[in-house]
C-alpha cells in the first residue's frame, strides 16, 4: 500500500552503453538503463549474469571500458568509490563487510564517518564541538537502530549475531550516510522465508519513510517482483529485459533465461 502512493520523480541515475571486460572476459556488454528518483529498481539475473559487476560500476569500484553514467545531471566516464559516497550513494555488500569485533552501534556509527566535521584532534580530546557532534551523530544512529528494530543487540559484537541480523546492521550502516540512492547487493541472500519478509519490509519502509531511491540486486524472483517498481534483467552480461514486474514476467527471453535449458 505504502509503495503505490509514493511519488516517483524524474530520472536521477542514467547508465548508458556500459561495457566491462576483464581481459578477454566480457562481464557486461552495452548495458543501458535508468533509475528514477524514489523508485525501487531491481537488477535480476541468474548467477554470473553480471549483476554485482553492474553495481560495482555505478559504485565506482570497477571502471567500465565503454559507456557513461549520468547522476543528477552530471556525466561521468570514470568514478571512484569515495566520490560516489560523497554524492550520496551508499551500498551494502553481498558478503557482509562489517567489523566483526565491533558492536552494532559502533558499526553503524562508522557510516557517519563522511558526516563528521570536527578533526581527529578535537575528537581525541573530546573538545566541546566534537562532543556535541558526537551526540548528534549518536542520536541519528539510535534512530536507525530503532527503525531497524535491533535495539536488543545495540552493544553486541556483530560477529556474534545471526546472519539475518548482520544483514540488517549492514543496511543500517548504509542508512547512516543518509544516502539519496541506496545500492543493495543481494540483501536477501542466504536468508530464510521469515528473514526475507522482514528485510523486504525494511527496504520498503526505507523507501517510504526517507524517500530513498533503491537499486537492488537479487536472484530470488518472487521477492523482487513484490517490492520493485521496475526490473532490469541481465543474462551473460547482456540486458534481456526491462520494465515493470508484470512486463518482465511475461517477457519470453526472461522466461528462457530462468526456466529454459540449463546453462
Amino acid at each position, binding site marked *: *500500500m*505504502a509503495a503505490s502512493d509514493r511519488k516517483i520523480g524524474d530520472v536521477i541515475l542514467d547508465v548508458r552503453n556500459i561495457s566491462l571486460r576483464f581481459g578477454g572476459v566480457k562481464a557486461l556488454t552495452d548495458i543501458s538503463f535508468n533509475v528514477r528518483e524514489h523508485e525501487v529498481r531491481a537488477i535480476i539475473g541468474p548467477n554470473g549474469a553480471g549483476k554485482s559487476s553492474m553495481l560495482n560500476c555505478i559504485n565506482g569500484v570497477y571502471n567500465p571500458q565503454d559507456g557513461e553514467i549520468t547522476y543528477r545531471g552530471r556525466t561521468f566516464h570514470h568514478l571512484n568509490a569515495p566520490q560516489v559516497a560523497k554524492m550520496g550513494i551508499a551500498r551494502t555488500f553481498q558478503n557482509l563487510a562489517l567489523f566483526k569485533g565491533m558492536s552494532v552501534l559502533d558499526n553503524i556509527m562508522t557510516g557517519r564517518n563522511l558526516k563528521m566535521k570536527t578533526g581527529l584532534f578535537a575528537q581525541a580530546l573530546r573538545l566541546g564541538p566534537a562532543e556535541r557532534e558526537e551526540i548528534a551523530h549518536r*542520536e541519528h544512529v539510535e534512530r536507525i537502530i530503532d*527503525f531497524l528494530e535491533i*535495539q*536488543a543487540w545495540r552493544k553486541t559484537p556483530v560477529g556474534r549475531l545471526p546472519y539475518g541480523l548482520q544483514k540488517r546492521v549492514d543496511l543500517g550502516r548504509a542508512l547512516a550516510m543518509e544516502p539519496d540512492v541506496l545500492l543493495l547487493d543481494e540483501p536477501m541472500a542466504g536468508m530464510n522465508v521469515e528473514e526475507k519478509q522482514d528485510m523486504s519490509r525494511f527496504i520498503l519502509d526505507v523507501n517510504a*519513510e526517507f524517500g530513498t531511491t533503491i537499486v537492488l540486486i537479487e536472484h530470488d524472483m518472487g521477492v523482487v517482483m513484490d517490492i520493485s517498481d521496475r526490473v532490469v534483467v541481465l543474462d551473460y552480461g547482456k540486458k534481456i529485459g526491462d520494465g515493470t514486474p508484470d512486463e518482465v514476467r511475461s517477457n519470453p527471453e526472461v522466461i528462457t533465461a530462468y526456466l529454459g535449458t540449463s546453462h
Partner: protein
Amino acid sequence: MVDSTFGRLLLAHAAQRPDAPALREKVYGIWQTTSWQALAAQVRALACGLAEAGLQRGQHLVVIGENRPRLSAAMLAAQALGAVPVPLYQDAAATEFVYPLQNAEVAFAVVEDQEQVDKLIEIREQLPALTRIWFDDPRGLRHYDEPGLAPLDALLAAGQAFDRAHPGRYEHEVEAGRADDVAAMFFTSGTTGHPKGVVHTHRSLIDRAQAGATFDRLDSCEEVLAYLPPAWIGQNIFSYAQWLACGYVVNCPESAATVSIDLKEIGPTYYFAPPRVFEGLLTTVMIRMEDASAPKRWLFQRAMALAKRVGPARMDGQPLALTDRLRYALADLLVLGPLRNSLGFSRVRVAYTAGEAIGPDLFSFYRAIGINLKQLYGSTETAVFVCLQPDHEARADTVGVPIAGVEIKVSDSGEVLVKSPGLLQGYYKNPAATAEVLGEDGWYRTGDAGFIDGAGHLKIIDRAKDVGRMQGGNMFAPKYIENKLKFFPYIKEAVAFGDGRDRVCAFVNIDMEAVGNWAERRNLPYAGYTDLAAKPEVGELIRDCVLQVNADLARDALLAGCQISRFLVLHKELDADDGELTRTRKVRRGHIADKYRVLVDAMYGNLPAQYIETQVRFEDGRTGQVSATLQIHDTPVTPAADARRAA
C-alpha cells in the same frame, strides 16, 4: 480513595506531586521520564480530543499495542470521560479481533503501530461501527489513505484546541464520574467458544489495587517494569490500577526483545511474572552455567547447594545457625548477589507469580537465592487479588491467605467460591454466562478445585473440570504431572492424558534453546525443531526426565497412580496461533487431544511409532505443513506400594 475513579486519582497525583516521575520509556537508547503533571496534561488533551470525536460516556474504546505510555494515557483519557477502555491482546491475529469489536460495538480504536492498523483494516468490512482509528507510531503509515485513520498526534492537537474552546469541560467530565461506573472491560482468553468481556468498575479495580498495596506495604517509591500484555488484567492491576492507586513509577521497555536488558537497567522493586517467565530465566541461567568454566561451575554448585538448604528457611524468617548465616553471607557475596543482579532482581522487594501452578523446585530456587517470590490467587473475574502469601509464609503448593475484603468457601463438590469487592459486574451482554459463575447469593464460582489447609492457606489442585479419575479410581491431576515435567529445562510444554484410562500417557515439547545447546555440546547436528525432536538421543534425554517424574510421583500416595507409562516428543511446538495454547500460554488439553487423536490412540494402542501430518498457522494467517514419524517411548512405572517399601 474507595469512592475514587482513575480520572480523579490522576488529577490528585498531578496536583500533589506534579514533578514526580509517573512513567518512563526507553527511547533511542535513553530512559525518558514523564512526570505526573505532564501525563495529566497529555491525558487531558487526549480526553478532549476523544470527546470532540464523539466518544460518549459508557461507550467502548479499543486499545491495542505493547506497553506504551501514550496507550496508557489513552485508557486514562477514556476513563476520564466515563467511557470504557477495552485492551486487546496485541499478538492476536486479525480475525480474533472481530468478535470483541463487534460484541462491544466499538467505534473508536487507539492502536500502537502499522501492524495493528493493518489488522484492523483487514477486518474492517466486518466492523461497520468502527469509525476512527488513531495510531501512536506513524512509521510506515504516512501514505495510508484509509477513512478515519489518523495519528495520535492529530488527536492530541485537536484535543488541545477543543480544550481551549470548551474550558471546564474536562473537569466537568471527571467530576461526573462515579466509582460504580464501568472502568474497563477485559476479554478472557477463553479455552472454549467466544471470549467473554469481563466488566469491572472503578470501585472493583481500585479497591483490589488498594487491598494488594496495603497487604505488601507498597508506596510511591516502587519501580515496576511493564512488559506483559496490557490486555491481561494482571498487567492492568500491576502497571495501571496499582500504579494510579500508589503513584509509583511504571517503566516501559524499549521493545519486546530488550525486556531482559531493560529489567537489569531498571531493577524493579515490585515484580510480577507468570511461572513460565521464571522458568525461562532459570533455563537461561542453567544453560549459561553449563557453558561456564569448571571453577565457576564448582562455585555455583556449592553456593546453590547451600542456598537450597538454607535459603528458603531464611526467607521464611526462621532462625539460622551462626555457621549457616556466615556461609550464606559468603555465598551471597560471591554467587547469589551477582546472580540476582544478572537476572535484574537486585532490588526486588516483592515478587509474585500466578496464572499457573508453579513447580515446587522452581519456586524454591528463587526463594533460595534470596528473592521474596510469593504466589497469589485470582482471575480476571476477581480483579486479581483474592489470596496472597504473606512474607515469610510462601509455600510452593498453596496460593496464600484471603486478603482484606475477601471471603472464601469450598463447595460440596470441592470447588472454590469467592466473595469480594473485586468481583466482576458480569460478562458483557452475556447474562447466561454471568449466571453460571455469579450466583444470586453473591458467591463467584472460580472453577478451581481446592481446599483451605490447616494454616489457613488456600490450596489449588487443578481446574475443577480437569481433575479426573483413572479407571482404577485413582485421582488424575494432569496439570500437576505436566508441571513436574516442565521443571526440567529441556521440557517446554507437556500434555498428560489419563482421564478414564487405565494409565497415563504424555506429549512433550522440547525446549529448543536448552535441547539445542545440549545437542551442540554433544556434536549432534540438527536441521530444526522437528529434526531435533525426532533424534533418538533427545528421546533418551526426555526419557530420563520422565523416569525422575515417575519416581517423584511414586512417593505421593495420592498421585502414585498418575505415573507416566508412555510418552512421545511432539514434532512441532504447541502454539497459540494453532489454537493449542491460550494467549496466556495455557495448554488447551481437549483441543490437543482432538487434533492429535492418532497420536493418543497410538500411545494407548501400544504402537511403537506413528506418522502424522499437521497444519501450522503463522502469525500473519498463512499456513504450512509439518509431517514426521514419532517414536513412542515406554517408561517403567513403580507401583506405589513398592515405592513405599523401598523407601
